[in-house]
C-alpha cells in the first residue's frame, strides 16, 4: 500500500478506536507497514488537521494517538450535549497526584512526609477516581501499600507518558543545596 492509502487507514482507525491507539497497535493491524511510516503518517495527519483549521485534531496522549475536538470549541459541544463532568480535582488531590506521579511507586507515609498532613482521605478519593492504583506492597515492616498513577491519569491531564510531566525545578535546586540522600528525582516510566 502506498502512503496515502496508509494514511487513510490510520485516520479511519483513529476515528473508530475511541481510545488512544499506540503505534505498535496500529502496526499489529497493518502488519506490513513499518513503524517509521506509521509515525510519519500520524505526523502528517496531525499537520493536515492543523493546516486546514479543522475542528478536530490528533492528540498524542497516554501512549497513543487519538482524534479529539479542539478545546476552543468546548462551548459549542456543551450546547449539543449535556456534558457530565465531574468536579475539578481539589488542591490537595492535585498535590498528592503530583507527588505520586514523580515518586511512584510509593507508600502513604512517603506522601504524608512531603505534604506534612494526613493524606488517607485524598488517596482514597484518587483511587475512586481511578487516578491512582495499588501496585503492590513495600517489603518493609507492616508491608504498606504501594501506589502509582494510572493510564486514566495520563489521559485526564493529556500527558503522553510520565516523562511528559514538568521537571521539578526547585526540587533539583534544593537537592544541590542540601546534599540529602533522598533527593533523587526518579522519573520512572510506568507500564500500563
Amino acid at each position, binding site marked *: 500500500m502506498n502512503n496515502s492509502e496508509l494514511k487513510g487507514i490510520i485516520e479511519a482507525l483513529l476515528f473508530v478506536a*475511541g481510545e488512544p491507539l499506540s503505534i505498535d497497535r496500529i502496526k499489529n493491524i497493518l502488519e506490513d507497514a513499518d513503524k517509521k511510516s506509521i509515525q510519519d503518517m500520524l505526523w502528517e495527519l496531525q499537520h493536515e488537521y492543523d493546516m486546514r483549521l479543522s475542528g478536530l485534531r490528533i492528540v498524542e496522549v497516554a501512549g497513543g494517538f487519538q482524534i479529539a*475536538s479542539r478545546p476552543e470549541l468546548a462551548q459549542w459541544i456543551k450546547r449539543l450535549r449535556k456534558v457530565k463532568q465531574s468536579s*475539578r480535582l481539589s488542591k490537595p488531590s492535585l*498535590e498528592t497526584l*503530583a507527588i505520586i506521579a514523580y515518586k511512584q511507586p510509593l507508600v502513604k507515609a512517603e506522601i504524608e512526609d512531603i505534604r506534612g498532613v494526613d493524606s488517607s482521605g485524598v488517596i482514597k478519593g484518587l483511587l475512586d477516581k481511578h487516578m491512582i492504583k495499588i501496585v503492590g506492597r513495600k517489603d518493609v515492616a507492616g508491608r504498606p501499600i504501594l501506589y502509582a498513577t494510572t493510564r486514566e491519569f495520563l489521559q485526564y491531564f493529556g500527558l503522553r507518558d510520565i516523562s511528559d510531566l*514538568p521537571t521539578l525545578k*526547585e526540587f533539583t535546586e534544593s537537592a544541590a543545596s*542540601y546534599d540529602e540522600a533522598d533527593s533523587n528525582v526518579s522519573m520512572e516510566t510506568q507500564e500500563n
Partner: protein
Amino acid sequence: MSYEVKLEVFEGPLDLLLHLIKKNEVNIYDIPISLVTQQYLEYIDIMQDLNLEIAGEFLLMAATLTHIKSKMLLPREEKAGEDEEAEDPRAELIRKLLEYKSFKEVAEELGQREDTWRDIFYNPPDKTIEDEEVFIEVGLFDLLEAFRDVIANTPDNRSLDIAPDELTVRGKMTAIIEMLDMAATEGVTLMSLLEDGSACTRRTIVVTFLALLELARIRLIKLMQAGGSETIRVYRNEDIRADSGEPKENLL
C-alpha cells in the same frame, strides 16, 4: 505591632509556612525564623479563637519552629579543629519546604492542564464494532477486587454448606480447564466461572478463586483484561499447551 491575618485555608503547616515566607518576601534559604514563628503562632491562635479544629500537624510544626528558634538563639558551637560548619538548625525545614513547594508548583501546572483537557472531547467507539481487544494481564489486585465484588453480592447461606460436597480445588481446576478447552480461543469471563451454576455459594466462589490462582501460578491459564473494560477473561495459556503437548495431567 498589630498584625492582620487573612484567614485562608491551608493544606497543612508547610503550606502555611510557604504563605508566610511569600507574604513577608523573605528568602526561603534564609528564613527569619523568629518572625515566621511569631506569625505562625498568631495564626494558630486565630484558628483557636475561631474554634477551628487544629490538626495535630499544625501544632507539631509550631513545636518544631519554636525548637529551631531556641537553637538559633544559642551560640553556635565552635568546633575547633573541624572544618565543617555546624549545620544550620533550619536546614531540614528548608529542605522540606523546598520539596513541598516544588510539588505544589507541579500541582498548579496539573490544574492548568486539567482545565484545558476537560474541554477536549473524543468520539465514543462505534458500538457495532466488537473491540479488537488489547489485553493487559490482570494483576493480583484486580483479581482480588473482582473476587471481593462477587463475594459481596453473594448471600452468606451458611446453612447450605453443611452437606459434604465433592468440591475440591483440584476438581475445580480440572473443571475450569475443561471449560476453557471447550471455549477454545474465546476464553470465558471470570464472572461466569465464579457464578457458575446454581450452587453459587461463598464456598464455591472461594474454591473457584483458589483454583484460578493455582492455575495461573502453574501458568496453565492467562487472566486478561481488555483495555478500559472491567471484564476479566480467562484463557488457556496456549504457549504452554503448544510447548509440551499434554501438560495438564502431569501438572495437576
